[in-house]
């Protein structure tokens, strides 16, 4: 493996450097998330036209779809951080992976709840065993497994590494689950309602959706950086840079 990758990661991954960097980025990300979120909500809930079939009920997609997208995106981000943590043993990557998990689990949970709320008026049932919903449920269990494993160790770093390994196994598992649930649906001829048909989406619906995706991304960055900062200070409380920081704050 090329030598510059670990060197570069180690420099960015040094806790004091990242602490300052994250501190500088976080307010901007949070502001951007709030502004774009507000614009997207206005565009989606007010400006966009009602659907000719679903009426106003479809508007939940402005929450549901970005959440679903984030639940997968964060899992992917967690997988990358987990890989870096295991291969190069970088503490920051461990923290990023472990602090991503609760955020991802929250988005997955929102996806499931909004999907279920949407399902009631659309298919007349709160829950259907369709491939997407089932995969999302399995994803939630994966997130919970990672979080649970992380917290069951007394040593945080050891817990983080074990949970990172589980996260990587999950990366392999998600497509397999999706494939097998699809196969299962063809076998059982169940209710195969497609949540997102290949419909021609109106531009007035599309832009709020894309804007909301940007907002959720920014929110993830802001939330993650805040969590990582708190974690780094707690983990490195004995180190000089944290002591200097404490003096700085109180002065």
């Amino acid at each position, binding site marked *: 493996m090329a030598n510059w990758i670990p060197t570069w990661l180690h420099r960015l991954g040094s806790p004091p450097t990242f602490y300052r960097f994250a501190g500088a980025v976080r307010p901007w990300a949070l502001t951007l998330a709030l502004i774009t979120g507000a614009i997207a909500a206005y565009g989606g809930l007010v400006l966009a036209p009602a659907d000719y079939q679903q009426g106003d009920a479809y508007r939940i997609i402005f929450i549901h779809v970005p959440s679903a997208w984030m639940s997968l995106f964060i899992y992917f981000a967690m997988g990358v951080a987990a890989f870096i943590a295991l291969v190069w*043993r970088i503490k920051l990557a461990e923290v990023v992976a472990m602090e991503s998990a609760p955020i991802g689990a929250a988005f997955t949970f929102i996806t499931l709840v909004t999907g279920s709320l949407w399902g009631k008026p659309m298919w007349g049932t709160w829950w259907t065993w369709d491939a997407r919903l089932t995969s999302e449920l399995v994803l939630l269990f994966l997130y919970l497994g990672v979080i649970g494993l992380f917290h069951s160790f007394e*040593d*945080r*770093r050891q817990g983080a590494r074990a949970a990172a390994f589980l996260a990587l196994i999950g990366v392999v598992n998600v497509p397999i689950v999706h494939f097998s649930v699809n196969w299962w649906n063809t076998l059982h001829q169940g209710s195969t309602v497609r949540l997102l048909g290949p419909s021609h989406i109106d531009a007035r619906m599309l832009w709020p959706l894309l804007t909301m995706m940007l907002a959720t991304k920014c929110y993830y960055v802001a939330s993650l950086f805040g969590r990582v900062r708190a974690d780094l200070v707690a*983990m*490195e*409380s*004995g*180190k000089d840079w944290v002591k200097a920081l404490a003096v700085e704050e109180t002065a």
Partner: protein
Amino acid sequence: MTAEAPLLHARALCFSRQEEQVFGPLDFDVAAGDIVLVEGDNGSGKTTLMRLLTGILHVDEGTLELEGKPLRSIDTAGRVVFLGHQLGLKADLSPLENLRVAEGLAGRRDGMDAMAVLREVGLAGYEDEPVRRLSAGQKKRAALARLMLVPATIWLLDEPYANLDRDGIALVNRLVQAHAARGGAALVSSHGTVTFLGGEPRVIRMHA
């Protein structure tokens, strides 16, 4: 590979758990034929050092080398035996059956065989008794028999004197000295200030 490289070589070796230093920095060299006493109070990191030397724990700070190369778990396999607080004996098997497993896994030192080794540690007549029925001292002896049988160079003995009577202590010393004499090396940890080993063994003093 340099012929002069010591078996074990540690420089500025530290170990931290949850950002708290367990021990270190330590510097030591262990060559073939050395017997090294690891001394320190309870909680000074003796067991942690032993586990680092097995390669099960990962070295975070400082250098630790096995024959001139960074010590990794892949390289310690077969070269190192570890006798810790858990003796590695299956309670439902007899001492002889336990030795047969060890022999299968790690091989047999030339000129040794399971029955002879058991006689040597004073377990003649107990070969077929399940380990669970043996006394604490006898279990320790059964575990020591394993060290004699398998062909590893480096012995890591964590508190080997615990649970042993006067004869048992003499037995440990005799085994360790015989091992050093045939070109092996041994690290022996003890929290007592008394050294049971004859002569003047080298000492690694542990402090947090």
